[in-house]
């Protein structure tokens, strides 16, 4: 506590039902509740055993804190605090809590609370609990040197604390760092307390700090790792995903617009095609992004890949009974600091996604994200999912398994497009700091759509055509001649 100047925490509740509301974390950590600056989280817990796993295998950091929590106080507790620095808070992607012993216990609610900035976690009847806290940090990793040659290796740096930041006393803990390869030219060494001389212990692509004993609350020990990562640090500043549901056509149309940017090291000299062609042949490992694979849902058809100036012919789409895979190559390899905005889209049969619940009520179950599945990971800064429901759909509700802390805004409004009279109902969900780990998360939308509403468009078109014909017929009956013969 003392050493962490800024600290935020998550709020955790075992009993409250899942609220699919908007946790307002838009922009840099705007929390729901602000606690008074004099607030001090009660020292009611003790971390009996803690394993902090930091995975840096992809181009973003994934931290997992496995902790056995013990309640020191007499009363049952329902709040557990976890500190974040304000910088981390800006980047934190999904924050999720699970009970390791009983995975069926899913009702943890995570809420960010600010306390100068500070924070809280809530939970009921916590006596001794095994928790798994997952947090993913956005991929804003530093790349020293900032500019490298086209064929050089790229290195990334990640800073963290060897002691897992906690506001409770930790009896026993260990920090494991998983890296993409064994090329780790620099990492901070700290003196050991036990039988090993110094931490960390390096075994292949893994660094282990600890075990440490009896770390007081709030203790930190800054550590830096510099490791090779000659893979693209792909980053999407904005992903706009439109899902258009058509009841008449029995079709669901997907369109995604990516504002892609490679956050990796910049080129120190300008692009050289000869070197690139040669390196493609001899050493295809590069930090330039040259291909993306989108495994789509089975049954997807008519995929396209375009950008601002038209179709990009370097894409392949296979769709059969086993898979539907879209492989695209950008027009040019995307090196660090280069941009490439593009659009992809495809159609799918509605029967795979849409179900009639009762009468006029429908349920739509689609993936929240269907971005590329890259071995090196893929990060999204802003994601905007728009579900365009048919004209006249009402009573729109949704549920998503994306961590609530990532969702920043939810709006239901109307949009007028092809032959609409009142406009289609549009559900817009905005989220931030997501990663391709969340590819398999669902978005379930339920809505009411009456038969009468579905007849609106044909009737309007028919009616207007009829009135046009009748109008012309009436006009043809009018005699406009000046002289009558």
């Amino acid at each position, binding site marked *: 506590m003392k050493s962490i100047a800024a600290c935020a925490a998550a709020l955790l509740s075992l009993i409250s039902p899942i609220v699919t509301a908007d946790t307002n974390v838009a922009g840099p950590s705007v929390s729901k509740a602000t606690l008074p600056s004099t607030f001090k989280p009660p020292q009611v817990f003790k971390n009996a055993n803690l394993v902090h796993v930091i995975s840096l295998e992809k181009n973003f950091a994934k931290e997992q804190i496995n902790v056995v929590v013990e309640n020191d106080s007499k009363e049952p507790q329902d709040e557990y605090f976890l500190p974040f620095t304000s910088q981390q808070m800006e980047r934190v992607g999904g924050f999720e809590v699970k009970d390791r012993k009983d995975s069926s216990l899913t009702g943890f609610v995570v809420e960010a609370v600010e306390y100068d900035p500070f924070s809280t976690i809530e939970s009921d009847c916590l006596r001794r609990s095994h928790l798994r806290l997952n947090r993913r940090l956005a991929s804003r990793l530093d790349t020293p040197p900032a500019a490298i040659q086209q064929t050089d290796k790229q290195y990334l740096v990640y800073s963290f604390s060897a002691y897992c930041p906690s506001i409770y006393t930790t009896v026993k803990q260990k920090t494991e760092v998983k890296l993409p390869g064994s090329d780790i030219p620099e990492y901070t060494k700290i003196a050991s307390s036990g039988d090993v001389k110094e931490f960390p212990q390096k075994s292949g692509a893994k660094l282990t700090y600890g075990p440490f004993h009896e770390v007081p609350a709030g203790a930190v020990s800054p550590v830096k790792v510099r490791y090779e990562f000659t893979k693209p640090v792909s980053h999407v500043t904005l992903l706009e995903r439109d899902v258009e549901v058509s009841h008449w056509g029995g079709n669901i149309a997907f369109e995604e617009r990516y504002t892609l940017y490679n956050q990796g090291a910049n080129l120190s000299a300008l*692009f050289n095609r000869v070197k690139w062609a040669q390196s493609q042949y001899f050493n295809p490992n590069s930090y330039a992004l040259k291909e993306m694979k989108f495994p789509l849902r089975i049954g997807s058809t008519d995929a396209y890949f375009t950008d601002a100036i038209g179709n990009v012919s370097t894409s392949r789409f296979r769709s059969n009974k086993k898979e539907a895979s879209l492989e695209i190559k950008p027009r*040019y390899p995307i090196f660090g600091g280069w941009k490439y905005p593009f659009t992809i889209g495809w159609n799918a049969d509605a029967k795979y996604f849409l179900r009639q619940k009762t009468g006029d009520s429908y349920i739509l179950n689609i993936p929240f994200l269907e971005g590329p599945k890259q071995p090196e990971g893929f990060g999204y800064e802003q994601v905007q999912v728009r579900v365009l429901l048919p004209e006249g759909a009402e009573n729109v509700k949704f549920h998503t398994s994306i961590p609530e802390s990532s969702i920043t805004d939810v709006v239901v409004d109307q949009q007028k497009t092809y032959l609409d009279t009142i406009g289609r109902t549009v559900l817009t969900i905005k989220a931030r700091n997501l990663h391709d780990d969340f590819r398999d998360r669902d978005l379930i939308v339920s809505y009411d759509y009456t038969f009468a509403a579905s007849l609106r468009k044909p009737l309007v078109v028919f009616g207007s055509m009829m009135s046009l014909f009748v109008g012309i017929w009436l006009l043809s009956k009018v005699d406009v001649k000046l002289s009558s013969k």
Partner: protein
Amino acid sequence: MAVASASDPSPMQVLADFGKSKSLRTLLRVLILCFIAGAAVSSRLFSVIRFESIIHEFDPWFNFRATKYLIANGFYDFWDWFDDRTWHPLGRVTGGTLYPGLMVTSGAIYHALRALTIPVDIRNICVLLAPAFSGLTAFAAYLLTNEMTTNTSAGLLAAAFMGITPGYISRSVAGSYDNEAIAIFLLVFTFYLWIKALKLGSVLWGALCALFYGYMVASWGGYAFITCLVPLHSFVLICMGRYSTRLYVSYTTWYALGTLASMQIPFVGFLPVRTSEHMPALGIFGFLQLVAFIYYIRSALSGAQFKAFLFVGLGAVFGLALLALVAMTSAGYIAPWSGRFYSLWDTGYAKIHIPIIASVSEHQPTAWPAFFFDLNMLIWLFPAGVYLCFQDLKDEHVFVVVYALFGSYFAGVMVRLMLTLTPIVCVAAAMASSQLLSTFLSVKSPKVKDPAQEDVTDSLSKKTKQNAGGSLRSANSPYVGVYSFLSKGLVSGIMTIYLLLFVLHCTWVTSNAYSSPSVVLASRMPDGSQHIIDDYREAYQWLRQNTKEDAKIMSWWDYGYQIGGMADRPTLVDNNTWNNTHIATVGKAMSSSEEVSYPIMRQHEVDYVLVVFGGLLGYSGDDINKFLWMVRIAEGIWPDEVSERKFFTPRGEYRVDGEATETMKNSLMYKMSYYNYHTLFPPGQAQDRVRGVRLPDTGPVLNTLDEAFTSENWIIRIYKVKDLDNVGRDHAAAASFDRGHKKKKATKKRGPRALRVD
């Protein structure tokens, strides 16, 4: 169809009777016209199906960009548009130097569809505008032909010809978003309205004609064709002694309203009263007043008096008018004929005086095979159709004759003007072939007593009248007819085969010659699948995404519009070619050595230089092949500094290999094209596949430019202009230092040491 006068109800007869009902025939005609329009549209979609919905070639990219500007900023901003992203640093008064008809048309369609809640992407509207208008052109050709003959099947044939003839398709495939896309429709429709106005002597039709003439002026520079043809037609009519009040009313209405309409376009402005191209129209307008006056006088005076008056009055007026014209031309009120116009009379003129016009392939004289390629059988039916016009020489037939002569001449002078010839060829050929078909396709052989044959579509009495009054043949021998079924079958069968072959030819030409977007190149993989070479867009997209928003790109003018449209970056010169000196400056920068070019590029704030190089792929339309034009244009302005001769070897060869001249090897264009190219090959095997030569082992050295991007197949190469050296060396010294050479003593020029005073 058959003649319906027989008594025995054969099946053919029933069919013929069935076809006689008026409403059914109207329905059939509408259906046939709809199918023709459908065929016209769909035959233009090859490129969309094969490639994608994309804007083609060069000029359309500007039109597309201008349309997007119009849609984004509204009409008034478009009108006042000053574009600072072209012709850097001059800029271009775009709103006042373009024909806005095309953009406004697609903008109007865009907004109309929006209002009907059909939000179609503007790109798709632009891509499909030309095919859509070709359907309308077919309809206009139908109307025009119907004015020429009473035989409606001729109109339908003309519509079909117009719809699919390659001469018109060449400029109106989907994606060819150029002024011609709508202009040909307007041309044909204006002529139709003119004929209609002339026939009826109606102010209403004359005004409509003027309205469409105004639209035409707003759309295409080729409006001058109408401006010259209509007066010429009127003049010929007067000379033939066919002056009538109909002519007077229609011409004066058209001229007065049409000229006013045309002057509303900023680009045209006062040209209709100030340039020589427009003088015929004005002259005929005056002449008509004179003729009308004379006719009035003649009705009032006696013969001898009138003769004297005619000599004195006419002579005086003509003399005065001519004097005024000469005086005003020499005083500069009326511009003399422009160079572009001279090149229409003397095809060698442009090559000598205006290389920039001669460098455009579509301004070359037409080769003979092009006529057959673009018009196929229509070209030999065309004279027959014109001959038929002489058979029945009414005012409107004179128009066909005049148009045919005029159009043929211009089509022979410039490839591009094949377009203006095509409509009349279709009309004349349709008249000829329908005459042939209706003669030979009648089931009933004439009875000896009957005044012969043909034409089912009209009633018997009408037909007799037509035959008696119309064709010479029937006047000479009224009992002539086709009696034998064999000859009927043979001729109509052959004609059918020709028509089918024509369709085949059109399809083949359209598919093979006119449907390539030229932005993307298609090739075949070994397994027969299509492989698309997309280097242009690769490089343009790279420029668009990874350079500064206002990075100035220098390239040869051909690519200016594409860079503006696809890469969205400011350019130095583009396809508008309004400033020859500026283009020559770029030509000079390209054709001079680095020491000369670098200051030019610095002065024009150039950030990147773009060249097209086809050596790796064998793409022949590259900059080295266009290089001589750059040299010529630069030489036109700086004859002392750039000399075309120096780019040829002493033996007069244009070489790029080891034998190339020093001037060639030192020119910026050569260096940029071949820089680093030899490293792609094993030593001694560097090859230029366009010019089929082996290149030297050591490539050129570039000191003032850095290679910034080269596309996958090396078609586009982009170079970044180096900034000034930060320790004040010249670039050659800095580059040689970077290569690890010792600093030359000679470059060490240091003045006496002086105390620095700040």
